[in-house]
């Protein structure tokens, strides 16, 4: 249960009167364990029972995070990471959607393209890194390409499956109303696949964040992934944990943003609230 979901639950008190209270309680419950552990660790280190060098206590991590934020470094790193994820996700999601739509809609395209794409999918995306570096250089282009490759597959699979799964019965209604091919796509097929498409985009976005770490660990001069490597090389676990926390927050915010943007389009769904 996240901050965003609580906020949403609180936004709609009329429609689901019981929900805000219950969500709020559950959210509190979710925070109990990490907070207790943090306090315990802080106390163990403060009391001198544990030394806290390799696993710094929350206060030290907090101070590091604050220091990074105050100096503007955090913003630079987070900005670089977000830019890469954004560009890679945009390209990968676009390509995945187009290819998914084509193979989902045209049997010919499916038999032509799908086997190759499935074979490519079997390659762990990280394996592309050396090749991408040779092709696109060591700077941004190769990183964005890696992220795009990671985002592509879940989106492609999701869209293709969604199109094949469209209910024949509902398409028939479109035929009865004599929709043109274009109108059929716009008025029936697109709305029908929208929920699955959004789920596919969300899993794509999650993978995007996974691959940005890989890309930045392998060579970058800025970005949260760079902060991880930097912390390792300088022997500063506090900086590593600060970067990890930043990743968690960014990832969750990006996902929440995607959900928030798409929520109005899914108001009709029976299970929307439970699924998202």
């Amino acid at each position, binding site marked *: 249960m996240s901050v965003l979901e609580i906020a949403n639950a609180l936004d709609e008190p009329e429609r689901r009167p019981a929900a805000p209270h219950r969500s709020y309680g559950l959210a509190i419950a979710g925070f109990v364990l990490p907070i207790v552990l943090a306090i315990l660790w802080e106390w163990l280190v403060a009391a001198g029972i544990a030394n806290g060098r390799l696993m710094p206590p929350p206060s030290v991590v907090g101070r590091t995070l604050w220091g990074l934020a105050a100096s503007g470094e955090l913003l630079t790193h987070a900005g670089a990471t977000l830019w890469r994820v954004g560009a890679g996700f945009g390209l990968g999601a676009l390509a995945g959607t187009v290819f998914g739509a084509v193979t989902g809609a045209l049997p010919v395209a499916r038999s032509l393209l799908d086997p190759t794409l499935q074979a490519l999918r079997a390659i762990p995306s990280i394996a592309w890194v050396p090749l991408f570096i040779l092709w696109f250089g060591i700077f941004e282009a190769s990183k964005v390409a890696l992220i795009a490759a990671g985002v592509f597959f879940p989106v492609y699979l999701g869209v293709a499956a969604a199109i094949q799964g469209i209910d024949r*019965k509902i398409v028939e209604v479109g035929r009865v109303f004599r929709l043109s091919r274009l109108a059929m796509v716009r008025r029936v097929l697109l709305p029908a696949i929208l929920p699955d498409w959004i789920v596919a985009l969300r899993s794509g976005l999650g993978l995007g964040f996974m691959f940005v770490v890989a890309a930045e660990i392998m060579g970058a001069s800025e970005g949260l992934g760079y902060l991880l490597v930097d912390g390792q090389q300088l022997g500063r676990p506090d900086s590593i944990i600060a970067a990890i926390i930043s990743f968690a927050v960014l990832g969750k915010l990006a996902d929440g943003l995607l959900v928030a943007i798409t929520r109005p389009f899914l108001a009709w*769904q029976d299970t929307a609230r439970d699924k998202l």
Partner: protein
Amino acid sequence: MLSFDRLSKTYADGTHALASIALDVGRGEIVALLGGSGCGKTTLLRLIAGLDRPSEGAIRLDGEAIAEPRADVGVIFQEPRLFPWLSVAENVGFGLSHLSAFEREGLVTNALVRVGLAGHEKRWPRELSGGQQQRVAIARALVTRPKLLLMDEPFSALDATTRASLHGHLLALWQESRPTVVMVTHDVEEAVTLADRIIVMQPKPGRIFDELDNPLARPRDRLSPAFEAAKREALRALDRSLRDEAPHQEKAAETAGMWW
């Protein structure tokens, strides 16, 4: 107005669904296709709707052969088949996209009033009961004022009370523009309640077994002796249609016996 000429349909897997159907339906007439399962009622309806093509013969609507769905033919399916992403009003107005928003709104509101769903315009289909959803489907099919309305067991999934009230709604809507109606049903009482003529069909291959005229005056009283008599007659015809088929089944049973 609607005529079938030696109509046959054989599916790609060899199933002989319909054989030499010949029938004429007059303007404004309500015809019920009555029969047990597998006698090609739904196939026949899909052919009239232009959703499938006949293997032989033709269906003509006002002299024109039907090859694809037509604007002046409305279809109500067995399930409501509403678009879940459209509100009730948007669903009803689905076939009116060529009109201005103002005209559309007027027609949609009127249609919803007729099916007793005024005030439900903004709700989602999922928020409606099964009977309400089917009423939306009826409104959606009738709002375009089709001259031919096709119904494929539209009330079969509903309880008896809901069904009776929907029959009323349907007849009220029908009174307005008097479209020709061809409906498929396996419910004798429904056929007698709604139809001017009952076509009893027989399976394997699907063909017309008998035609019954149903001259009862509307509104029909389900408890009147005349209604009872018409119902008994239709039941008898349905029974005979199934008994004539029985020898086939015995043969099938024998073959099944040989298998042991």
